[in-house]
């Protein structure tokens, strides 16, 4: 309930500010809502959103898979960590825009370059989190699995993944939000569709209602993904913890 009041208050503040400003540059909730409905009816908004969502999913998946493998290897082996750590530092401090420009220049203005650029931007963060997770793995449970001759697969499934679950949840949480923000930049610079492209053209026309309606739609979509997918998975992963009495 408090969440709903809080959101309602935010919309109310917005409505009052818009009413006071009476400017084309700050449309009120009603104007944005009408714009949104019109774009949904015309199919424009669903199409642009699905373009963006596809890129988000693609680059998120690539970054997570590579990041988990690399982070796990670095957390488990001191030697790997020593060699790979400088690369990680370079990657972490590389500005997102530089990666995007390089990807477009070297690979071309295409889908592969866009998705790869976003994945590379997200990757170092996943690696750093998963490395922490792998370092925190309990050596006593490893020993137990060794003594009882667990197979490799059952070790990963029953010993490693449950211990990494909180780290997986943390990196996919922060991952989703970073990825979709960078996807918009990639689209703004070099794609002919997607929410980022629409925002770019709306910017050149000073069409604030369009910008707000797309931004809000995307926030809503991300909230839905978070509460229908990420949170239930997280709850499932921690169901073994003793509930507070």
């Amino acid at each position, binding site marked *: 309930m408090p969440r709903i009041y809080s959101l309602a208050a935010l919309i109310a503040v917005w409505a009052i500010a818009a009413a006071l400003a009476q400017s084309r540059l700050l449309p009120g909730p009603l104007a944005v809502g009408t714009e949104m409905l019109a774009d949904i009816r015309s199919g424009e908004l669903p199409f642009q959103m699905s373009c963006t969502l596809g890129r988000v999913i693609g680059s998120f998946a690539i970054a997570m898979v590579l990041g988990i493998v690399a982070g796990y290897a670095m957390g488990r082996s001191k030697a790997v960590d020593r060699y790979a750590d400088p690369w990680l530092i370079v990657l972490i401090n590389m500005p997102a825009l530089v990666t995007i420009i390089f990807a477009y220049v070297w690979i071309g203005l295409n889908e592969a370059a866009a998705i790869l650029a976003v994945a590379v931007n997200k990757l170092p963060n996943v690696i750093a989190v998963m490395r922490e997770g792998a370092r925190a793995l309990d050596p006593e449970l490893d020993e*137990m699995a060794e*003594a009882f001759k667990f197979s490799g697969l059952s070790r990963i499934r029953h*010993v490693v993944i449950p211990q990494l679950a909180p780290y997986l949840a943390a990196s996919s949480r922060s991952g989703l939000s970073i990825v979709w923000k960078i996807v918009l930049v990639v689209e703004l610079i070099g794609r002919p569709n997607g929410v980022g492209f629409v925002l770019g053209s709306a910017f050149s026309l000073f069409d604030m209602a369009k910008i707000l309606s797309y931004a809000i739609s995307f926030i809503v979509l991300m909230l839905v993904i978070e509460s229908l997918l990420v949170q239930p998975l997280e709850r499932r992963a921690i169901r073994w913890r*003793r509930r507070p009495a």
Partner: protein
Amino acid sequence: MNDAQSAGDAAPLELRIDAKTFLSADGTPVEVVRGLELRLEAGSFGALIGPSGCGKTTILKIAAGLDLDFRGQLRRPGSGRLGIVFQEPRLLPWRTVKDNIRLALPAREAAVDLTDLVEILGLGSHLARYPSELSMGLARRAAIARAFAARPDFLLLDEPFVSLDEAVAARLRDELVALTTRTKVTTLFVTHDLAEAVQLADRLFFLSDRPARIIAEKSLPPPRGRRSRDLVASISDEMRVLVSQATTDAGRG
């Protein structure tokens, strides 16, 4: 490799550790075991008794084949099916008691019937619970069930009854005797409690301080597990004399 081929089911446990050293945190080597030789007949129950910190757990890990970094030789009894009960239960907190026990089974025996084992250990009504919902006594029972589930021919226990109240520990000792007698598994049990060792074992091995070696050995007459309190007390007294004699001898030699 340190573990040689085992010759059939009747092979004894033979462990020889010439030297085992650890690197301490500041990089200096610490010798934990030196010149230890141990032989345990197939199907018998041996107890390793020694002061805290003398390297009992290290010896157990080497016997389990979990630590290959030592000079010496290990010949494990039977076909190498190992059951182990660690000092802490080491259950997977995110799996139920039942899954914890089942996961220790080899893949081709995944469907084996565990009802008897679970009943003997009184775990029947706790199979669906998670380890965090169990008392220490129950968690230790689950760990024992896991060790027996795969029907091991070599069983190792590392002080499995510490930090339990005496009544629970006594019941668990009886259950352990029942299970080891029934399965005739070669067992090596580590403890610092002489009375416990005398009550459970066929053969006692007394360890010295660091670097650990065996300073005295003693076979006890059967039947194990059913020795009366008086008998346990009198054997324990006898052992104390033997061990203090051996310790002075070792000090002189």
